[in-house]
Each structure stands twice: as structure tokens, then as C-alpha cells.
């Protein structure tokens, strides 16, 4: 039986409310994405100068630093998974979580124990639902990560890295995050954070960019000591900013298609409603005509 007029009307009005909602969310995401890109741009000079300085120290001194030394027999690996705090962003969180699972699988095949560090409520929910242990987690500002938050994460990870393996420390640290390629493409990606491979990634200075012979004050070791933790924090901040921009871009796209779908649905429901209304009118008319005829016949018989 086809739906009644009232049902169709109600359904149409609820779909238009949803459309208004998704449209608003789309616009909000679109405006935030500009801010996220500005933030990423503003963080650029710091990251660039820092990378330059670190590569200068690394090039002109043969210092071994605990953060750059590979451990001979890696047993435990930390994975920092950067997800979003909120949903309504299409496949954003699930695809980065899937990438994380793939990395976990690889690490398990190498017989490494995994210590999950999570950022963002979606990842935390995924892990707690499956009753997995979480080493540490952060949430609350996935779409606008501050540098302070990156520092916090970096401090926790560096501490875990510097703890000896026997006491529960980790031997390597990976980050799983979503790289913002363009407004249309965001790709889940994995990078190894520690042990550090200096001069890699986008911010690496060009090959012809000859680094000057620096004097170090107080000494190359001390400078490296001071710089590397900052470098790690800056890398994490970079990943978080990329993830935030990706999150907003996928949210905008998801909400745009939701709005489009709602519009299609509204059109279909309107058509259906008109049809039902038309057939009801037709039926009413034929009932009236039929009734009038019957009355006329009955009157004609009695006369």
C-alpha cells in the first residue's frame, strides 16, 4: 500500500531539516579548512628552520644521539594513530584506522610487540570496543591541534623511547596519519618517527642548498640534545596539522554528498506526494460522481 499523504509530507519535512543540518556542517568545514591551512602555513617557518638546523648539526658532527641510534634488536614498537574526534567525515577515521591495522599486522609479523598511542576519540573508541590495551591517548582538539598538544605527545613518546626495552620502553615509533594531498585527495600514510632519520620528508633542504660551517654554542652535542626533542615535536605537530586539514576536507566532502542526496530524496518524495494527492483527488471525484449518479438513478426509479 502506498504511503499516505501525511506520511510523505512528514518524511519530506524531516529530510529537509537534515539537509539544512548537513549543509551547515559542510559550510562550517569549508571555513575551518581555510583556517587549518593557514595554521599549517604559519607552522612552516618553524619546521623549516628547525630541520635546517638539525641537518646542519647532523652533517657537521659525528655525534651519536640516543634518538638517532637504531637499536640492534627491536622488540617493541609504538604506533601513534591520529584519528578524528567526531564522525560525519565519511571514511576518514576508518581508512586511517585500517592503515594502522595494516601496520600492526606487519609489525606483528616481525615479532614486535605493539604499544598503541592514540589521538582522537574515534581511534580510542575503536580500541576500547575491541578491549585492546592503550598505552596513552589524547583527544579533544583533533580539528585544531595546538603546538602544546604536539609537545605533550612528543614528550610521552620520547620518554617511552628512552626507557630501556626491559623496563617496558619502545624501540621504534611510527605515526599513522592522513596526508593532505589536495582538497579532493587525502591519503593515509605511515612514517617512522624514531629512531630519527634526519633530512627526509617535505621540509628537507634542497640538494644544492649548501649548509654553512656552523660554530656551535656550547657544543655540537648539547645543541643536538636541545634540538632533537623540538624536532620530534615539530614533526608530530606537522602530522597533526595534516590530519586536521584532511579531516575537515573529508567532512566537507561527506557533508556535500549528504546534502546532494537529501536534495534528491526531497525531489523524489515531492513527486510521490503529488502523485498520491492527485490519485486521492481523482478517487474523491469519481466517488462524488458515482454517488450523484446513484442518487439520480434512485430518484428516477421512485418517480
Amino acid at each position: 500500500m502506498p504511503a499516505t499523504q501525511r506520511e510523505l509530507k512528514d518524511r519530506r519535512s524531516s529530510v529537509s531539516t537534515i539537509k539544512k543540518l548537513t549543509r551547515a556542517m559542510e559550510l562550517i568545514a569549508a571555513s575551518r579548512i581555510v583556517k587549518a591551512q593557514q595554521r599549517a602555513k604559519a607552522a612552516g617557518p618553524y619546521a623549516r628552520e628547525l630541520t635546517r638546523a638539525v641537518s646542519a648539526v647532523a652533517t657537521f658532527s659525528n655525534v651519536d644521539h640516543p634518538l638517532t641510534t637504531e637499536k640492534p634488536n627491536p622488540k617493541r614498537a609504538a604506533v601513534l594513530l591520529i584519528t578524528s574526534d567526531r564522525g560525519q567525515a565519511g571514511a576518514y577515521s576508518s581508512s586511517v584506522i585500517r592503515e594502522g591495522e595494516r601496520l600492526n599486522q606487519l609489525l606483528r609479523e616481525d615479532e614486535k610487540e605493539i604499544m598503541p598511542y592514540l589521538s582522537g576519540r574515534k581511534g580510542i573508541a575503536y580500541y576500547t570496543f575491541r578491549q585492546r590495551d592503550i598505552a596513552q591517548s589524547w583527544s579533544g582538539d583533533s580539528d585544531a591541534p595546538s603546538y602544546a598538544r604536539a609537545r605533550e605527545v612528543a614528550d610521552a613518546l620520547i620518554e617511552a623511547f628512552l626507557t630501556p626495552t626491559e623496563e617496558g620502553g619502545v624501540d621504534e615509533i611510527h605515526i599513522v596519519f592522513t596526508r593532505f594531498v589536495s582538497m579532493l585527495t587525502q591519503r593515509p600514510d605511515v612514517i617512522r618517527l624514531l629512531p630519527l632519520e634526519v633530512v627526509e620528508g617535505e621540509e628537507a633542504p634542497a640538494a644544492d642548498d649548501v649548509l654553512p660551517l656552523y660554530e656551535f654554542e656550547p657544543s655540537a652535542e648539547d645543541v643536538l640534545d636541545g634540538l632533537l626533542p623540538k624536532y620530534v615535536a615539530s614533526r608530530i605537530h606537522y602530522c597533526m596539522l595534516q590530519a586536521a586539514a584532511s579531516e575537515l576536507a573529508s567532512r566537507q566532502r561527506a557533508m556535500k554528498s549528504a546534502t546532494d542526496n537529501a536534495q534528491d530524496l526531497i525531489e523524489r518524495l515531492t513527486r510521490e506526494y503529488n502523485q498520491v494527492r492527485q490519485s486521492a483527488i481523482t478517487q474523491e471525484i469519481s466517488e462524488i460522481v458515482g454517488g450523484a449518479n446513484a442518487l439520480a438513478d434512485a430518484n428516477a426509479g421512485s418517480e
Partner: protein
Amino acid sequence: MAEDTGKHLDVALVAAERVVWEGQAKIVIARTTDGDVGILPGHAPLLGLLQGGTVQVRTVDDEYFVAAAPDGFISVANDRVSILAENAEMGHDIDLEEAKRALEQAQAAGTNSEDEQEHVRLAEARVRAAEKAS
């Protein structure tokens, strides 16, 4: 390296999330772990850790300002000076009274853990920068 490179320094004071100040200067004085260094045009390449957290800059227009740059570092190369600090701030942007209160609070909280010591250091740097700027 010679004096004919324009006789000024291109200075950038960079915080983690923004560029605080960028411009040309005649001299930059920074306190590193080994003591104060004054940097004039033509200075040899240098990478140093800052301590005490204030940097003094005299611009080409003979303006003088102080900035707070706690726990940062300075890099000098080819008359380009970059001062990087996570929480860099201009001295005249800091409210002295507010900075003093923050310092008192940080000191009252104690100096037992490393975090608390860092808070105190940061607050001290801000007070010093604000005092010098006023």
C-alpha cells in the same frame, strides 16, 4: 664573508605556530648557555641554545626591542638570524603585572618537578623581557 653584504641582518623571530617578528636589524644580542653574544652583520655561522630567554634587537631604524624566547635557539648564517622558540613573544606585548603574577604563581607551585621548573623559567623570561621593554 665581508661587510659589503648590505650591513644589516635579516632577523626572523619564529614561534611554533607563527612568525612573531621579521625584519632588518643592526645588532642582535642573545644570551646563550655560554653567555651573551652580540651578532653584527658578517658574523660567522652559529648555532646556539638560548638561556635566560631574552633576545635584544636593534632594528635598522634604530628601534630597540626585547623579546622573550624561553628555551629557544638561535641560528646565524649569511647575515640571516633565526631565533626559534616555541613560545616566543615580543617584550612590549607582555603585560608586566600579569607576567609578575604568573611568576609568583609558578614559584608558589614549587620547583620540584621538571615541569614546574620549566614554568618558572618561562615566567622569569617573560618578566625580564617585559621589564626591559618598558
